């Protein structure tokens, strides 16, 4: 049968089980939008391409499926760049379609032409410029395969307008298997290293598991839990790993690193065996690398061989799918009773008792941001999907919302993208309409993609935006206070819109909260909204800081605050 490129594109999306895409129209993608006009694929209209990209990312994180977004050529494509980089840094599977000028115009600086495959070279797992309509199906198939397998990541497909317009003979049932010479899905592992790892775990007297986003990506939370619980090994998680092990369980140490808990950082610093699973020894985790886990032997499990030995040298490297490797280890190791390394567990418990996460109250009696997160945790029973922006809001969410399940935290860990959380929350809400989805925001970052309120209103998505409004770019202000003699250079955000009126202008609900007594009723009211988004504008203590923290360049055990 004869089909246009754009129709083939949509057919191929359905072959990949894509039912929802996030996008924004424009000249070069007119043929695609024309095909979408009477398609079964649900298209969510963003208000900025960056919003579409982050929404696809949030959808992917919340479901484990590949997120799909669509933008026009030139500025549409370049507006996706931050979203693509965000997904790349956090290994999130995305396929991003960009329009392109016609093939005869490429390279001539045509209207709305940008070299998006060139621009996205270092921020994608792979990218394609489709030059012939005949190549479309194979490329789309490859792109989805590459995006979701091994270490996931974003793939860009650039679609010239004529390639979408051309009509060719197309066999709808002619689906083929993917075969890429230079790309194989990782299978198996080095059996000898599994034995070494098992032996090391048996010998360990003070073991700690350090779990990262790879556990979530590999859907290996159950296997992680089995290992931790049958050997009574405390588990600390990176920001990307939160939820991989339930944060409310006794073995959980919460997050480690620069804003980790004291007990997690102490445990890593004192342990004799560190089991790193799907984590990459990032500088926000290790801080001063020379003194990271100084007493430990290290087992490092990762699907990406390039991560092993990149930042630290390890004793037992295991390259493989995290889930498969953990299954192999679990099969070879017996459970022990709680007395197995009693002293170590007691030490860890003592640190937990001595240095819990805590905060003082504000001298002027203003709301403490940490209290708000605790309330949200309580009122949602820890079962909401939490998105965050970047900065203090993100760290407080990581500290006080003790996630129980993987894929319930949407946060820009690697790139640290302000403006990520709200569109990501929209993507998650589209995927999970029955779950509460809450974006923990700051007054700075929420203004970076606030236009997406129109999307949440249009599609009746009751996402809750919880602004911890301190009228500052809080995290930068905190550093200025600590390391730049309190010179608050351009971090004062007192000039800001009235967020309640702004919400209402978009057709959303807005509530301002200044008193403790108003906190719970406001959150309850927001959770009860079934058809419109709610902006909760909490006016919080202006100069609350995130503690504890490791100043950059210091060792993990040299922490400020929280003692």
């Amino acid at each position: 049968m004869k089909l246009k490129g754009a129709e083939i594109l949509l057919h191929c999306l359905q072959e990949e089980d894509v039912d929802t895409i996030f996008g924004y129209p424009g000249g070069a993608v007119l043929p695609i939008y024309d095909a979408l006009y009477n398609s079964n694929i649900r298209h969510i209209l963003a208000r900025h391409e960056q919003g579409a990209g982050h929404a696809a990312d949030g959808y992917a994180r919340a479901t484990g499926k590949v997120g799909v977004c669509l933008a026009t050529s030139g500025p549409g494509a370049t507006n996706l760049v931050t979203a693509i980089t965000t997904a790349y840094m956090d290994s999130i599977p995305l396929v991003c379609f960009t329009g392109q000028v016609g093939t005869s115009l490429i390279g001539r600086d045509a209207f709305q032409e940008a070299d998006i495959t060139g621009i996205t070279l270092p921020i994608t797992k792979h990218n394609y410029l489709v030059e012939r309509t005949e190549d479309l199906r194979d490329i789309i198939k490859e792109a989805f395969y590459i995006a979701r397998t091994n270490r996931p990541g974003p793939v860009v497909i650039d679609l010239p307008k004529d390639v979408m317009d051309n009509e060719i003979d197309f066999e709808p049932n002619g689906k083929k298997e993917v075969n890429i010479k230079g790309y194989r899905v990782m299978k198996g592992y080095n059996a000898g290293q599994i034995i070494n790892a098992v032996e090391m775990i048996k010998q360990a007297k003070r073991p700690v598991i350090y779990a990262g986003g790879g556990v979530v990506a590999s859907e290996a939370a159950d296997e992680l839990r089995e290992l931790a619980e049958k050997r009574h090994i405390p588990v600390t998680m990176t920001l990307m790993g939160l939820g991989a092990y339930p944060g409310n369980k006794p073995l959980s140490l919460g997050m480690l690193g620069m804003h980790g808990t004291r007990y997690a950082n102490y445990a890593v610093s004192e342990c004799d065996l560190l089991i790193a699973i799907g984590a990459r020894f990032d500088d926000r985790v290790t801080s001063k690398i020379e003194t990271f886990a100084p007493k430990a032997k290290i087992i490092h499990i990762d699907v990406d061989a390039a991560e092993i030995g990149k930042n630290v040298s390890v004793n037992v490297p295991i390259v493989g799918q995290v889930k498969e490797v953990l299954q192999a280890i679990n099969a070879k190791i017996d459970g022990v009773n709680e007395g197995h390394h009693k002293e170590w567990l007691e030490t860890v418990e003592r640190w937990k008792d001595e240095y819990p996460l805590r905060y003082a109250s504000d001298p002027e009696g203003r709301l403490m941001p940490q209290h708000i997160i605790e309330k949200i945790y309580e009122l949602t029973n820890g079962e909401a999907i939490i998105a965050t922006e970047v900065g203090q809001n993100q760290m407080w969410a990581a500290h006080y919302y003790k996630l129980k399940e993987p894929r319930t935290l949407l946060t820009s860990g690697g790139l640290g993208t302000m403006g990520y959380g709200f569109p990501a929350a929209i993507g998650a809400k589209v995927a999970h309409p029955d779950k509460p989805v809450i974006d923990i925001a700051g007054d700075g970052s929420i203004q970076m993609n606030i236009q997406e309120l129109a999307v949440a209103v249009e599609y009746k998505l009751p996402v809750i935006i919880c602004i911890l409004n301190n009228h500052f770019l809080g995290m930068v202000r905190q550093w200025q206070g600590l390391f730049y003699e309190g010179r608050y250079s351009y971090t004062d955000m007192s000039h800001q819109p009235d967020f309640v009126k702004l919400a209402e202008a978009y057709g959303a609900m807005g509530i301002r909260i200044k008193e403790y007594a108003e906190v719970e009723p406001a959150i309850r009211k927001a959770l009860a909204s079934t058809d419109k988004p709610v902006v909760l504008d909490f006016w919080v203590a202006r100069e609350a800081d995130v503690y504890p923290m490791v100043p950059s360049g210091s060792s993990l055990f040299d922490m400020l605050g929280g003692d």
Partner: protein
Amino acid sequence: MARVNRHILAVTVENRPGVLTRVTTLFRRRGYNIESLAVGTTEIPSISRMTIEVEGDDQIIEQVTKQLYKLVDVIKIVDITEERSVDRELVLIKVKADTNVRAEIVQIVEIFRARIVDIGRNTLIIEATGDSGKISAIEDSLKPFGIVELVRTGKIAMVRGATRP
């Protein structure tokens, strides 16, 4: 300190537009330095071969190799530094050569088994192939006469015997 060595990587890649950019972008982005690079097609038209010379300690070379492997268009990488291999470079040198030094230059050319490929009024172009040491030696020998222009191809290399990378 780990020992810094020069390594020769034989990299088999898909013969597609943009593959060279992908490889060089990776080197730039990760801060590795390419000492020399030669690219050409192989006996299979859809596959190209890059010979990349890179300097670094073992850890850097390991990272370079692993990162290269992550490129979808990279099919295979072999570090042939340690293997018994033949490596060659080609150089063209335009050297000042008026009549009273020509004989001397011709003698140098013969010693190095190089060739004169162009004779101008006051210059000669000399072509030489060999390993890097030989190329540098001929360059040094011709320097006193005055080198007008010099261009080297970068190294290409192949493992001896029946093995293929």
